[in-house]
């Protein structure tokens, strides 16, 4: 039981909003120590895994390209274009992105990402759509749009990816099941993942369209009221 102390440290650390990096390293060291592993070996395990998982941070190399495009007005251009499409709303736009993202993940296309797509393309487009439809939009609602779009990226990525035969998750399932003496085919696992991919497109779209309604109620009502006010004034 004492070995679970690392999990406890992480939970407490997150609740108390302590520095995340430090908490994770601390939890690892304490867990290793209570399990009776020598300190140097714990540090070595930590270092080895950190090196072997460097690929998780590879997105760093794409930052200079995206930064340069932002410097030369990428977001401004996206906002300009969306402002010409009168019918686009934040919810519809985000739903379209979710569907495309899920389909891309199902075919193992790397067409997505918070850094590659949401920040430089989809968010500026949504921001443009919101300003076009509602005039000025409150800071809190912009934060909501950002949160929803980050979510759309995750929905599509997570629930679409296992439809691809050679996806990491699919290979993991095949490997783990083999260890447990069940032979499953990667292709069958991929096929069994299709219903969930279709369902997330539907569920996510419902969420995004709900926010459209919410914004409509908040801003369009206000706009109409102020119009009525001016009408009464001129009368």
């Amino acid at each position: 039981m004492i070995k679970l102390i690392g999990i406890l440290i992480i939970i407490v650390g997150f609740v108390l909003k302590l520095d995340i990096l430090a908490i994770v390293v601390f939890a690892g060291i304490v867990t290793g120590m209570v399990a009776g592993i020598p300190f140097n070996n714990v540090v070595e395990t930590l270092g080895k895994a950190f090196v072997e998982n460097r690929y998780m941070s590879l997105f760093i190399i794409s930052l200079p390209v995206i930064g340069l495009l932002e410097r030369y007005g990428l977001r401004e251009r996206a906002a300009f274009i969306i402002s010409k499409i009168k019918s686009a709303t934040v919810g519809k736009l985000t739903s379209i992105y979710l569907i495309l993202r899920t389909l891309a993940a199902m075919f193992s296309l790397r067409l997505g990402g918070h850094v590659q797509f949401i920040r430089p393309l989809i968010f500026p487009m949504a921001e443009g759509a919101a300003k076009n439809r509602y005039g000025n939009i409150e800071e809190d609602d912009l934060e909501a749009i950002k949160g929803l779009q980050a979510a759309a990226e995750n929905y599509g990525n997570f629930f679409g990816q296992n439809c691809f035969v050679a996806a990491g998750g699919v290979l993991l399932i095949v490997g783990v099941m083999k260890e447990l003496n069940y032979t499953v085919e990667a292709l069958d696992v991929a096929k069994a993942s299709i219903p969930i991919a279709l369902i997330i497109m539907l569920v996510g779209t419902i969420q995004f369209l709900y926010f459209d309604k919410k914004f409509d109620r908040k801003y369009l009502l206000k706009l109409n009221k102020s119009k009525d006010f001016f009408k009464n004034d001129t009368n």
Partner: protein
Amino acid sequence: MLKTSLTELLYVMCGIVCFYSAYATFKDDTHSSRFSTAIFWTILGVIFTFSRFGLIWGNKEIMIPDVIVGYMVIVLAILSAFKLVKIGKYNESTNEFKKTMSEKIGNKIFIPALSLGILTFIIAQIWTKQLGSLVALGIATILSAIIAIIYTNGRVSEMADEGRRLLELVGPVSLLPQLLAALGAVFAAAGVGDVISSGIKSVIPQGNILLGVIAYCVGMALFTMIMGNAFAAFAVITAGIGVPFVIAQGGNPVIVSALGLTAGYCGTLMTPMAANFNIVPTAILEIKDKKYGVIKYQVPVAIVMLIIHIILMYTWAF
């Protein structure tokens, strides 16, 4: 062989971005944590670039010993814990400049933006075996950088400055996924998984299919939330609950295991531990609520999806 060398070169490129951050921070004498911030990015750059440097030409011997990397990671954590890593000042372009340039360049600005993803895909599809998708990403990045410079007429130095700006904006948090994977390795070495699965076995009654399905799906989600990683949870929970309480009762192994992993992803949507999906994006998108700015919108959908998983597994796998 080629794949290993090229992948290693990508890490060198990551290292160079870090080194530039360190250099620019060090030169900025108005920076409030000039030295400690520069040290942070230097250490990270060293780990990226040199930890397996010899692999570039196929020599495994030339590397930094893992134990030293481990101590370097501890130093990074200490610098971060004492808030010694701060964001610098950047000479960003003005809004007027951005507006003028966006009008001048027009829609062509989207070509390099889209080429990053599309080129990665094309290269990965054609040379999967030889290169793998990581190297494809690297090659696509270089090509996109060239395309970006052609269309914007920007300078390489501007690109370096912008890379630094985004890296420091994303900040130390961008390291969390990598650190969590390292934590998982320590947990595995310490035998944390065994403790949990034997604990779960003593709680769940055997013989009820629906209860087994609920325990498996919810267990996957909960354990993923704690670990921040559905892959780690899958091995433990499938052995501990999935097989004895669902598959052994007649559930189709393919359907049960496939839905088991995606049930874990419902947990991923709800936890700050899944940093690369839920925390890093708050930095990338500059969301003010750094911990729950994304998660709070994902929780309702995750719960609905989890219920759908339970229904689907109960009706489809039996």
